[in-house]
């Protein structure tokens, strides 16, 4: 029977032959850069110059703090947030059978932003780092906001079964909640600058509590998603066909959309609204690795994590000691990639 299997699965057709090694190489490259910048004293600054070995072997108290309490959690946190967004994007594209779907489709970004705004108003404090409870509170507010917006979208669309209605009502809810957020911020203009950084994304104050939270959410989302990957494959054949194969469409969609909203909410709550990662990561995986959802749902988080990590490193060190909002960097990268896709499409047409 192994002969049978090999007949059926010679090699899944790939667009370019050496693409899978390329993807792995690129992932490895991101990891290497991360390690270098994290552990290397390369860009410490003029006031003190440490070698990479020096940092590890004889850590000066302050450089140890910078390394273990600032750089490492920011890097790991950026990776986790990117992984969550990549996962959410891959699922969203599968559920809606649309390669342009992305995690913020159902208005979850606007809902999370509104949640954060309301909690800032209530707390009167800032989008900075807090202790566990406060961090949970801020992320919790983001999650409640995201879930509420998703519920509103589903309510408006009258159920999860009509794709077009879902998409439309997602747009409507997104605009509505953005407007409410803007109105709230107008009444307190001093919060504009704070919310601007949130809206453009920043890993600024990611500490280990945030990283733990992101990791927990990642496992809670990734494991069920991978289990449901066959259902997503079946969905690509059409909803009726999927149903005839034995899938419960409402239950599947509700679960998947719930995962998308949880992952998005956690990411947005911790690092703000970062665009393009959720859109581009599944694309890259589909181009280079596989369209089948099991490998797609495993590789998209990896790709998304590497992407966001790379963007975060760029944003942190390109104009250091000042930094760019990481959402702006991902927008540039994502925009460039989409422009490249467009160019390639017109060339092939």
């Amino acid at each position: 029977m192994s002969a049978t299997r090999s007949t059926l699965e010679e090699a899944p057709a790939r667009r370019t032959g050496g693409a899978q090694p390329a993807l792995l190489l690129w992932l490895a490259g991101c990891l290497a850069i991360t390690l270098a910048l994290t552990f290397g004293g390369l860009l410490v600054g003029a006031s003190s110059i440490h070698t990479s070995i020096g940092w590890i072997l004889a850590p000066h108290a302050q450089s140890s703090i910078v390394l273990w309490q600032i750089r490492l959690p920011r890097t790991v946190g950026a990776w986790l947030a990117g992984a969550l967004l990549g996962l959410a994007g891959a699922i969203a594209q599968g559920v809606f059978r649309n390669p342009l779907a992305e995690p913020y489709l159902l208005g979850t970004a606007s809902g999370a932003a509104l949640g954060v705004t309301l909690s800032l108003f209530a707390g009167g404090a800032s989008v900075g780092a807090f202790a566990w409870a406060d961090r949970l509170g801020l992320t919790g507010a983001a999650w409640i906001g995201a879930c509420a917006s998703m519920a509103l979208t589903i309510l408006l669309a009258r159920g999860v079964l009509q794709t077009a209605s879902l998409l439309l009502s997602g747009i409507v809810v997104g605009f509505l909640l953005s407007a409410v957020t803007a109105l709230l911020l107008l009444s307190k203009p001093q919060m504009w600058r704070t919310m601007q950084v949130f809206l453009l994304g920043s890993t600024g104050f990611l500490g280990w509590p945030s990283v733990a939270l992101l990791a927990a959410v990642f496992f809670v989302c990734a494991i069920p998603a991978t289990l449901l990957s066959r259902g997503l494959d079946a969905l690509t054949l059409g909803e009726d066909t999927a149903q005839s194969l034995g899938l419960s469409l409402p239950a599947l969609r509700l679960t998947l959309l719930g995962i998308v909203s949880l992952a998005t909410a956690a990411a947005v709550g911790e690092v703000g609204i970062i665009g393009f990662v959720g859109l581009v990561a599944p694309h890259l995986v589909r181009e280079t690795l596989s369209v089948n959802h099991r490998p797609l749902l495993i590789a998209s988080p990896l790709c998304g994590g590497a992407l966001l990590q790379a963007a975060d490193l760029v944003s942190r060190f390109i104009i250091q000691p000042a930094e760019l909002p990481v959402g702006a960097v991902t927008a540039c990268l994502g925009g460039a990639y989409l422009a490249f896709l467009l160019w390639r499409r017109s060339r092939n047409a």
Partner: protein
Amino acid sequence: MIGNSRSWRPGRRARGFALGAGVLALAHAAAAVALVLRDDLGRSVDAPNDPRRVITLLPSLTETVCALGACDRLVATGRFDNWPPEIVKLPKVGGLGDVNIEQIVELHPDLVLYSNAQRVGARLSELGIAAFALQTDRYADIGRTVRIVGRLLGVPARAAALNARIRREVAQVRAEALAARRGAAPRVYFEVDPAPYAAGPASYIGELLTMLGARNIVGAALGAFPLLNPEYVVRRDPDVIFVARADAPHLAARPGWAGITAVREHRLCSFSQKTRDLIMRPGPRVAEGMRAIADCLKREAP
């Protein structure tokens, strides 16, 4: 070379008439338009002589007008203007972005003073109202604004006196601050926003800090309000941190910040909202603002 004076006699009366007419014309013109000045947006403004009804759209401009003793000429102010207390009851015609043009027109002002960050000038002059833009971002703008507003209001002498007073007060605060310093110049981090946005030396606050002898951990090359990498603050280890009152208790919770000297030894300066307004406004009360900063520095610096 003037020729024989007797040869001028025939045209003298004519010239006298011409001169008289000219003076009259000028006087008439002067009565309507005393000054044609170029404001800080580069626009040419026909400012009236002795304006009696003045509207100011920025708190520092309001304070300047009142400090020049012309508070009674104000008929309306901007929304955020809260000093001196007597102007609080005046109608408010809008904030930084949303100025109510209709309301301004209804009040028939002679002159409107606004910030060069607001975009009302063109509209108001279309409606026939004299609107003068002033830049009020830096320390040097204070004296300039006082002088120009003094000229616009027709009280140049008072403006000069005000400027002299301000200079005197500032010099006094600076001298006291330097005298009270215990050791080396304190290294300071001024947080404008918890993103974190810092006040660099190129900003107004930064200039005040520099004048008080403090050293900003942020270099001049980064601009007025750079968005910092939080790790940078940890690495530079400032002696004193200026932070908003609401954020002060949470500084230690930021990753890595508990190790900063200023956080560990609790050398934090926070101000009430009123004082913060005072400090952030480049206006006639600059010395008071500097004093607030200097007092805190004196208390908290090592």
